[in-house]
């Protein structure tokens, strides 16, 4: 996705690709469909050793970046995961790591980051709420501070890898505004309702918080001051998700083109038919566009640029829509076997559909963009 990689980043990409191809190829992804967690913890420890959990963790806590740009490093892995719809809680662990490293206290960092970096512990962000609510304005979960205690009550949904998480970063509303708190998974009053998704390996859970009481040291950042952190984490999550979708889309298109070269109808390969060629050309441009907006988003997130929020929505609209469009049309091009279990493309369709929905649909992000659009200077008078 990123045109300019450092030598170290290129090496990372190659290592990650090889590791996924060897350790969790598509046959393994099929097997993991039957496993409760959807991934193996031993394998995750190996992935962590290769740096999957490093980018957002400071060196002092067992992490480190290759390029000095944590997001730029991380999306390399995300994109490769998309290419082979790899398992593992990459997004939630890295988002929570980034949250703690950047907004947490030093003692939180010491307590949490080394375990995450080593692949020994797991974490997830309990962000959205039931009813497909991804906008913090609509959240009902409360985080109330009284003295040195924090009380949390509410319900969080679509929490990736909630079932294995040791730490949950919970976003809620406090008296003073948006507040975040880090809750150990085995805290009284916290119940995780396990869930599945249509993705082969990705598991989600609902987190019910009823009478959870924590020490004030559990707060991540000051009470009521979490708005910037939440915005940053949402952008980061969208960036990783979009990079994954770029991998999904590009790989699906490549595979389908190869498939179509090798299938013959009416005495010619099916990809030689102009109606397909024109659709494939459009899809190739959508992929290129996805990469272009994806890498610009990476730049903006790493630089905390003013346009990062806008770009994260633009990326989600374009990539969330086109990635699914591409997989969908590739199913059509593949023909009958494309709707069977035996062919791999349904695994890509599953990942694309899940990624489309999580952290807000393209439709929801178009709505967000309108606010931005209405702040622009209109061109000319409209009658």
């Amino acid at each position: 996705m990123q045109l300019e990689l450092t030598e170290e980043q290129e090496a990372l990409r190659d290592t990650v690709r090889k590791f996924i191809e060897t350790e969790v190829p598509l046959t393994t992804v099929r097997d993991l469909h039957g496993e409760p967690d959807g991934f193996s913890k031993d394998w995750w420890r190996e992935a962590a050793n290769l740096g999957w959990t490093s980018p957002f963790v400071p060196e002092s806590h067992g992490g480190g970046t290759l390029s000095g740009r944590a997001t730029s490093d991380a999306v390399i892995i995300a994109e490769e995961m998309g290419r082979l719809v790899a398992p593992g809680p990459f997004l939630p662990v890295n988002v929570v790591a980034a949250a703690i490293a950047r907004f947490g206290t030093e003692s939180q960092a010491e307590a949490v980051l080394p375990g995450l970096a080593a692949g020994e512990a797991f974490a997830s962000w309990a962000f959205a709420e039931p009813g497909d609510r991804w906008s913090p304005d609509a959240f009902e979960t409360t985080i109330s501070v009284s003295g040195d205690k924090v009380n949390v009550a509410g319900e969080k949904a679509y929490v990736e890898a909630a079932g294995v998480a040791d730490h949950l970063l919970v976003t809620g509303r406090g008296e003073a505004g948006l507040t975040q708190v880090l809750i150990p998974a085995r805290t009284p009053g916290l119940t995780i309702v396990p869930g599945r998704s249509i993705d082969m390996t990705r598991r989600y859970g609902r987190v019910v918080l009823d009478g959870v009481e924590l020490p004030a040291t559990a707060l991540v950042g000051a009470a009521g001051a979490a708005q910037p952190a939440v915005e940053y984490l949402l952008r980061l999550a969208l960036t990783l998700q979009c990079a994954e979708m770029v991998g999904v889309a590009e790989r699906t298109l490549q595979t389908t083109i190869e498939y179509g070269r090798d299938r013959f109808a009416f005495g010619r390969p099916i990809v030689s038919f102009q109606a397909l060629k024109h659709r494939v050309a459009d899809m190739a441009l959508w992929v290129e566009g996805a990469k272009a907006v994806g890498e610009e988003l990476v730049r903006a997130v790493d630089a905390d640029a003013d346009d990062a929020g806008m770009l994260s929505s633009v990326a989600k609209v374009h990539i969330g829509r086109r990635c699914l469009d591409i997989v969908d049309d590739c199913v059509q091009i593949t023909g009958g076997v494309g709707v069977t279990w035996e062919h791999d493309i349904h695994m890509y369709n599953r990942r694309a559909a899940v990624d489309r929905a999580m952290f807000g649909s393209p439709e929801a992000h178009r709505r967000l963009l309108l606010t931005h659009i209405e702040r622009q200077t209109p061109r000319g008078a409209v009658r």
Partner: protein
Amino acid sequence: MSADIESVEAFTERARDWLATNLPSWDDELLDDVVLQNRIFDGGFGGLAFPPEYGGAGLTLAHHKAFYETADELDRQLPGKYWVSIGMVAPMLLERASEEIKQEFLPQILRGDIVVIQLLSEPRGGSDLAGVMTRLTRDGDQYILDGAKMWSTNAYLADYGVCLARSDWDVPKHPGLSMIIVPLDRNDDVTVRRTRMADGQMGDVCEEFFDGVALPATNLIGAEGDGWSVAQTLMAHERNQTAGVGFGYLGSGNTTVMVVDRSALAASLAATARARDVLDDHSQQLADVFVDSIVTKLTSARIMRGQMLGTHEGPWGSAGKLLGSEAGHRAALASLATTGADAVVWDGDEISVENAGTAWLLARSSTIGGGTSEIQRNIISERLLSLPREPSFDRELPYSEVVRNASKF
């Protein structure tokens, strides 16, 4: 047909009495398909338009239609598994098979004692039905069948298949094909596997492998080299079946309906979106689900009227298929989009298929199965609008050469 056969009116009255007495309603306990079909046949209502010498009743398609319409009117149970066997294969055999085959097979098929399905598509085949690669090799007074078939509806519950295979590689595509009857219950050299679909569930379609299956030459339907012509007879009955006319009309649950009323779906998605306060983000798309549904329904009705009036002859069936299946696909996408995260995630450890996400995985089934949308667009542009045909690379040359050329295209 002699002129002194029973009038359709009289027949309908007789059928009505018999149906009311002999077949349970859909509200009663459900009977096995075989029991139902045996009862219909033994009551004299099997193969109504087939000649008596093949187990039929010697009546006409008008009687046939009246019987099934009356059954639906009375809400009587009808068997569901014979739509290929009785609706498509039997009338093809009547038209094309040898006297011996007709005498042996038709009575058993019509009584529902055996099921015969069609073996046409192939795993690597795609849209080019005549590009069959399954081999049929003459060996004395028998043939040897080698190859694989796919998308064979109901093969998992069938006793026989009529199989399209290539008997001559040195002649062009179409004349190199032959049609032959194959028993499907042979364990050693025939394998029938139900196809698992993208949603993880078993489909009604199957894949079959033939490994040196020896078949008597008398199993041929038509002469060697007649295969494509016989296949076209089959497909004509398939189109009738889809359109609900002719032999293929077997009452409720036995037609492949592409045109679906989606106003209730639009309503339920609108209710979800309104409850979540995001109706404005989805309103245009949801209205289109509704509009698509109305327009598709009206277009389909118009085409049927036009077929009766003579204004919509020829391949207009492709139009209905294309419209209905593409509208279904758009509705599946609208469901996925509107339902958001709840379309793809649910509580519990179990795999569920009751969600818009899982439905999405099969949303292309109808735009692929029964002829892809691309094939329908070719048919509409070439046969309805008379646009020039695609350049042909496979009509003149020996098929072995076509295959060689294709890989170097």
